[in-house]
């Protein structure tokens, strides 16, 4: 990850959401982006130039645009028409961004579009977040990483955030993923946690 001093940045064309620029690079604000918060609060997954990423819950393309600055290609899945309009606008100017309008809980509908990926990132704020991630692991190469952004308040409001957090980690383990890092995103995002997993198996290189 590129840092200027303590500030996380990405190299790319600015002005996506009037983000601050620093020495020609785009400042990646942890208060706006949960992925940026993960890089501040924990270790995260190093984004590299040869990476292929499947991004579920792309929304307005704020975080997606930063990810696209780092990696080879991002398949960005979003379901709602309103944010999709913004995402298309971002994708028009970033040639390594493939915008897909589909429901992240129905991978069979976009499977004919997406190749195998090295990183699966999910931020969909649904009650069955872990199940959606597990279903999409079909796209993830063995040895690849999956990052789940857990909005505990969307999963079950009756449970405490900690309970939801532990239950989700258990669910992911049951789904055959190895949890390598789990951190709360405070103070950047309240009641949000990031869970980083790997898919067991032999690491294969790109064809």
């Amino acid at each position, binding site marked *: 990850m590129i840092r200027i001093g303590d500030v996380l940045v990405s190299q790319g064309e600015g002005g996506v959401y009037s983000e601050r620029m620093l020495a020609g690079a785009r400042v990646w604000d942890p208060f706006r982006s949960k992925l940026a918060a993960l890089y501040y609060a924990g270790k995260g997954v190093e984004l590299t130039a040869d990476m292929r990423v499947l991004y579920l819950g792309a929304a307005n393309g704020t975080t997606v645009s930063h990810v696209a600055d780092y990696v080879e290609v991002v398949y960005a899945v979003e379901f709602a*028409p309103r944010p*999709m309009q913004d995402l298309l606008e971002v994708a028009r100017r970033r040639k*390594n961004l*493939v915008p897909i309008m589909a429901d992240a809980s129905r991978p069979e509908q976009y499977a004919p*579009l997406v190749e195998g990926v090295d990183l699966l990132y999910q931020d969909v704020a649904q009650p069955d977040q872990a199940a959606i991630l597990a279903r999409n692991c*079909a796209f993830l190469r063995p040895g690849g990483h999956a990052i789940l952004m857990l909005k505990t308040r969307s999963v079950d409001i009756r449970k405490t955030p900690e309970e939801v957090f532990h239950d989700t980690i258990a669910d992911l383990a049951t789904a055959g993923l190895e949890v390598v890092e789990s951190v709360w995103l405070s103070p950047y995002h309240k009641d949000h946690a990031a869970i980083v997993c790997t898919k067991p198996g032999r690491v294969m290189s790109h064809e």
Partner: protein
Amino acid sequence: MQSYWFGDVDGEVCTPFTGDAAARARRIRTLRATMDGFIPLAWKDAVACGVCSDRSGYFSALRDLCFAAAEQDIREQYAGKDTELLQMVRTLDGMDEMINLLSERVAEWHQVRHPAFSRKYHRTPAHVLVKSISQKQRGALGRVAQQVEQLAAARTDLAREVSSRANQVMPNTSALIGGLVAARLLSNAGGLLPLSRLPASAIQVLGARTALFTHLRTKSPSPKHGIIFQHRRVHNAPKELRGKVARALAGKLAIAARLDYFRGVLVPEFLDGAQARIDRLGAGDKP
């Protein structure tokens, strides 16, 4: 055989799909992959298929398809007749809020300029006061008052449009409860489809969220009505009958919303019975 966006792959043989991005976008909707034992596509198959020659060509073709598909999807989602009505009602409610807020503010300001002025015993409605301020006051205060008046005029136009649009989009619901209130129900439910899926009990208290959850949490009495209180049959009914009328009206509204969603035309035989029943209840007769 596996079907991908660029064609069908069967073992070593690939049959490319010929057609432009729009045709590919239409085809992609019909494709469903089986996720059991699923193996993601390999982009080199597309090269073997003759769809593209290199990786940048692959992305360029794939992106064209994805843009076409997404734009088509967005267009279809917005084409629903209720989508614009939703925006119109929410704008109307926003304008109401602004007009009330600014009228009050202007009146307060006016009072400071004129120490002898008081609204006590005058019963001047806010809009009349705003009008007189806009005519008499100079400077920013007069200008703001003028703007509030214009906003109020635009609001009246919008309300008329909302009502007539609601009559088209939800004819049965509008016939029962009036276009404006019907549109507010629609806005609260989030659309015609969600509204048609609500049970009558939910429609009855739509818009009374705070009271409902206070009731569920504590021992406070349950709300009898939400938005539907705005309808004359409910608020004109004697207090002890209001709950009864609201319940019956909500029941009929639930049916009306389903008629609106699935048939989309006025159903007179339903409406006659429904109107008669609610009128009977409101008059205090036994059902």
